[in-house]
């Protein structure tokens, strides 16, 4: 599968400290989340689904312990980054929808404020972040170009020239930003003006009194701002006419305000309210139309114009229509600067990539050596540290500084390796201690029992990890990096330098415009209202000012979704979003999430225990039981060809519309995770359990390249077992139905 991996979880292990002992909530789970797909995690309550999602969000409960593993996102390990770093991701890149909408909304804040709050805060942070990233990337680019030139010199290009190029690029980008800033201000003013007008019209339509005079004042000031800025090409006359009209209606409206109103305003400091007259409404509607037309005009390409203005500081392009300006400047930019600059960039990209592949090759060698070293066992702390350092340095060298999509595995290799090695030495020291304690307690207990006393305590199980297991963990970290590198080396042939160049320039442009994008409260409000309409809330403008208790359950859940989407996240985690809702509302919410996923190319982690819901939503499904993933595959595979007895049990314990036979309930309850079972956790409740199930945990067997299951039944020597009749019947019915649809 050659899709971009958004998030990957490797060997995650989380426990909770409780009075009774350590509860192992999540035990070594791994999965990848691809871009634009929905991964569903299914299981009973207490199987660790929610714990996993909370770990991804970095909001685990206070008594949780990360015992191992990593959550990789954007070159970072989320389990180990500090809280300040997590702030930048949480809500912004990874958003979450909780089960109970009422408890995730603030009861004393209006809905509108709750939606816009995050938008406004994030906007500020984004601008800062954009500037930093822009500078960093440009510096890396300059350095690489210089290096590339040093190795294969180009005729007529010296290092000084490169500096000049970079400087020009930076400078004209600043110029472009300035221009764009001014342009954006004008656009903002126009948008705000439309917002004010819309508010006014809405109030008038609903026969409510408004402070017309002050609203008109706002409109006037915005109008002036638009006129002053880079925006109006072709609209000057229209705008002037509008300004005159607004002036007139303002006078008329002001005349309507009585003396009493004015006095009241002076005394109470309140607004003088009245209704807008029909002429005012007409004029404003016309103005709104013009403004909207202006906003829908083609936009200036400031990247090009910036360069032109940088070279010809005295010119004034503001009177030129956008299309013509763009046309003229692009030619100038390409001939004067971009063509030759792009050659350099391409050189750098190719160079950097070639170097990276070279480094990767040597890194693979280093890793191979390190694997042998660790496999041999019996190493001292210094030796291990030295090896780690060596591996780390060669892996770091193999990271392409110009790659836009960060290589999660390589970035976190060093820290993961160090951690695992540290753990190894911890176990070297701790294992004998634990053994001794366990032996002591066992002896104590037996002595008490021998005396015939009643013992009301259990022996705390020993937390011992065999050293060879830990070494295997170290090796798995290394081999993961190695496999990744090997795959990269193989894929090197299909590398397109041109594409990468464009990516870099686009990335720089995007970051630069991030710096200038400002969000005012009024625009945030308009955005929030648009978002509320998008998630299907009728009369959004009115509901914007309501409190959460005024919404029904389904509407509240929509608000929560709107808040989650307000920051435009990459990944959306839905933790049982429909469990508290009934069928019709549930169907609506699911449709909404599916639609948004398509529109925004979101990656979704969907957590639920309802298999019916999963069938609707999921591209891939992971079935969890007792903190482990027991089956993992595409939705079709899990529903039509289930392999694990637990999946069978889940499927057969829920009735569907055609079920008549007795339901196959799963006997008993999930195991107590303070004392996790030695073998397969499901063995006790499993009627197909074999002896080995009680002794040894089954490995993941591959059923197909996308379908895995952890059950001994898939072992070649296992006896053939029939899938329960209730499921085969259902699959047969489903095939019939599916066949009918196919025709």
């Amino acid at each position, binding site marked *: 599968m050659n899709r971009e991996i958004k998030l990957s979880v490797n060997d995650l292990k989380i426990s909770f400290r409780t009075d009774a002992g350590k509860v192992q909530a999540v035990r070594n789970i791994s999965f990848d989340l691809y871009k634009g797909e929905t991964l569903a995690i299914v299981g009973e309550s207490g199987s660790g689904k929610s714990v996993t999602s909370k770990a991804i969000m970095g909001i685990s409960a206070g008594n949780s312990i990360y015992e191992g593993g990593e959550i990789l996102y954007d070159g970072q390990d989320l389990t180990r980054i500090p809280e300040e770093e997590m702030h930048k991701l949480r809500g912004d890149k990874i958003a979450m929808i909780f089960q109970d909408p009422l408890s995730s909304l603030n009861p004393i804040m209006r809905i509108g404020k709750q939606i816009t709050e995050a938008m406004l805060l994030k906007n500020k942070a984004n601008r800062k972040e954009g500037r930093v990233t822009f500078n960093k990337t440009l510096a890396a680019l300059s350095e690489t170009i210089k290096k590339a030139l040093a190795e294969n010199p180009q005729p007529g290009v010296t290092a000084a020239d490169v500096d000049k190029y970079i400087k020009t690029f930076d400078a004209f980008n600043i110029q472009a930003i300035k221009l764009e800033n001014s342009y954006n201000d004008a656009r903002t003013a126009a948008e705000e003006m439309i917002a004010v007008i819309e508010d006014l019209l809405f109030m008038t339509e609903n026969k409510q009194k408004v402070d017309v005079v002050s609203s008109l004042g706002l409109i006037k000031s915005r109008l002036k701002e638009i006129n002053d800025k880079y925006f109006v090409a072709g609209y000057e006359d229209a705008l002037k006419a509008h300004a005159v009209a607004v002036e007139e209606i303002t006078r008329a409206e002001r005349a309507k305000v009585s003396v009493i109103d004015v006095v009241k305003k002076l005394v109470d400091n309140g607004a003088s309210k009245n209704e807008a007259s029909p002429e005012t409404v007409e004029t404003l509607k016309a103005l709104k139309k013009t403004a909207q037309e202006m906003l829908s005009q083609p936009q200036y390409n400031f990247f090009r114009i910036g360069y032109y203005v940088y070279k010809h500081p005295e010119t004034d392009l503001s009177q030129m229509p956008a299309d013509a300006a763009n046309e003229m400047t692009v030619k100038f930019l390409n001939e004067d600067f971009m063509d030759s600059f792009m050659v350099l960039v391409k050189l750098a990209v190719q160079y950097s990539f070639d170097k990276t592949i070279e480094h990767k090759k040597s890194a693979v060698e280093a890793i191979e050596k390190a694997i042998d070293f660790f496999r041999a066992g019996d190493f001292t702390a210094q030796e291990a540290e030295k090896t780690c350092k060596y591996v780390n340095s060669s892996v770091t060298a193999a990271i392409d500084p110009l790659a836009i999509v960060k290589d999660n595995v390589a970035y976190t290799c060093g820290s993961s390796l160090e951690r695992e090695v540290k753990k190894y030495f911890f176990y070297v020291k701790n294992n004998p201690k634990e053994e001794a304690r366990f032996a002591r307690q066992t002896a104590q207990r037996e002595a008490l029992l021998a005396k015939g006393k009643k013992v009301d305590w259990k022996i705390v199980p020993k937390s011992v990890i065999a050293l060879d297991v830990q070494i295997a963990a170290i090796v798995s970290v290394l081999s993961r990096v190695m496999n990744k590198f090997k795959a990269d080396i193989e894929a090197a042939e299909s590398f397109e330098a041109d594409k990468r160049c464009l990516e870099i320039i686009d990335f720089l442009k995007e970051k630069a415009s991030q710096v200038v994008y400002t969000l005012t409260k009024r625009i945030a409000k308009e955005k929030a209202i648009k978002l509320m309409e998008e998630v299907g809330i009728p009369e959004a403008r009115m509901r914007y000012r309501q409190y959460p208790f005024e919404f029904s359950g389904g509407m509240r859940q929509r608000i929560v979704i709107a808040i989650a989407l307000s920051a435009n996240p990459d990944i959306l985690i839905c933790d049982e979003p429909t469990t508290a809702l009934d069928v019709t509302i549930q169907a609506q919410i699911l449709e909404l999430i599916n639609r948004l996923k398509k529109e925004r190319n979101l990656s979704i982690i969907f957590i639920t*225990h309802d*298999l019916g819901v999963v069938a*609707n939503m999921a591209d891939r499904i992971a079935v969890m039981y007792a903190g482990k993933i027991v089956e993992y595959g595409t939705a079709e595979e899990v529903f039509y060809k289930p392999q694990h007895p637990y999946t069978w049990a889940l499927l057969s314990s*829920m*009735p569907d519309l055609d079920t008549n036979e007795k339901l196959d309930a799963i006997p008993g309850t999930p195991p107590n995770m303070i004392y996790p079972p030695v073998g397969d956790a499901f063995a006790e409740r499993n009627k197909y359990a074999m002896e080995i199930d009680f002794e040894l945990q089954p490995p993941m067997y591959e059923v197909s390249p996308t379908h895995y299951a952890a059950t001994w039944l898939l072992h070649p020597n296992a006896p053939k077992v029939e899938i329960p009749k209730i499921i085969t019947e259902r699959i047969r019915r489903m095939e019939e139905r599916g066949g009918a649809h196919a025709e």
Partner: protein
Amino acid sequence: MQNNNEVLLKVDHLCQYFRLGRKDLKAVDDVSFEIRKGESFGLVGESGCGKTTTGRSIIKLYNITSGNVYFKGERIGAGIRSYQDAISAARADAASKIKALRAEKDADAARKAEIQEEIKKINKELGAVVDRNRALIRDAKSNTKDVDKKYVESLLQALEAEYAQKFDAAAGNTVQLAALKKEYKNRCRVAKKSKLITQIQMIFQDPIASLDPRMTVRDIIAEGLVIKGITDKDYINEKVYEILETVGLVREHADRYPHEFSGGQRQRIGIARAVIMQPDMIIADEPVSALDVSIQAQVINLLNDLRERMGLTILFIAHDLSVVKYFSDRIGVMYFGKMVELADSDELFKNPLHPYTKSLLSAIPLPDPVYEKQRTRIIYNPIAEHDYRVDKPSFREIAPGHFVHCNDAEEQKYKQQLK
């Protein structure tokens, strides 16, 4: 299940209004249905449509506003609002007529006596209406009170008949006779305290909230028996153990507290508490909604078992249609306090007639990805679907056993559809 046409519970034009400021909230509005002995009747609808209120009104947790509830042929609940409404409507009507007549009288002195006569007649008519409705109100009140008296009498009669035989058999043996007499006296005392309504028991949705955290399981389960007046500790314990085993728990659980149990086990305790009263009918209010899938199946299987073993009749309230379909013989669909459709469960799923039912059925998620991805939901918009301005709707039988809330035009349409 059983082919029995004996009606156990009959709900007749039940209305349950709640005061909400100046207006009434019509939680249940004119709902009628019958539940036959031994059947399982499902009640579905979205949250807030009045399913739970219907259940609670039947068991008299609320005083119903109007309508009647009959259990085993006895009227156990009756609302008087409709009669009061009839009285006040008649009064207003009469008052307006009289006012018009008086105005006429003032204008036309010649017809004075005639008009006077007419006013008298109207007043007399009004008096008759008021008296009739008052009698109905009295009837309703006394009826619901007398129910328990009648029930106690019937119980006592049955006891007398039973013990008369035993006394005859034991005649001469003074020791045995004395023991029997004591037993008879005891049972009579218990019987005198009995109420008919205890024959209906309820299982609640939330197994955590519905169990007192400070009572042991034994106390919780035995509470009904204690209230009934049974004092024999051994008898109670024996009963509790028996019931615990019936619902799939063990004796040792009796001395534990609710928090020591898992969700499914707690719901079993709730069921045990209801079943120990040996009811004829159980109202199960969303008994599985708060449980995990695997536990849901356990509880559903248990309820099915109990139903077969004890011949229970069950009113099953839920919003999960797949579960209701699996569990119920007949299903009633509710929408905003009204029953919109009622039919055999197979019939309802095969031929849904009311547009709301269709919309509800189209929203059921199924464990079938291919089908799910093609599923289109039908959206129900009552204003667009129905035109009730002239032709008022009512609850009508379209086909044998298949009722729909509709007006004349729709009735024709639905009948056409069924052919």
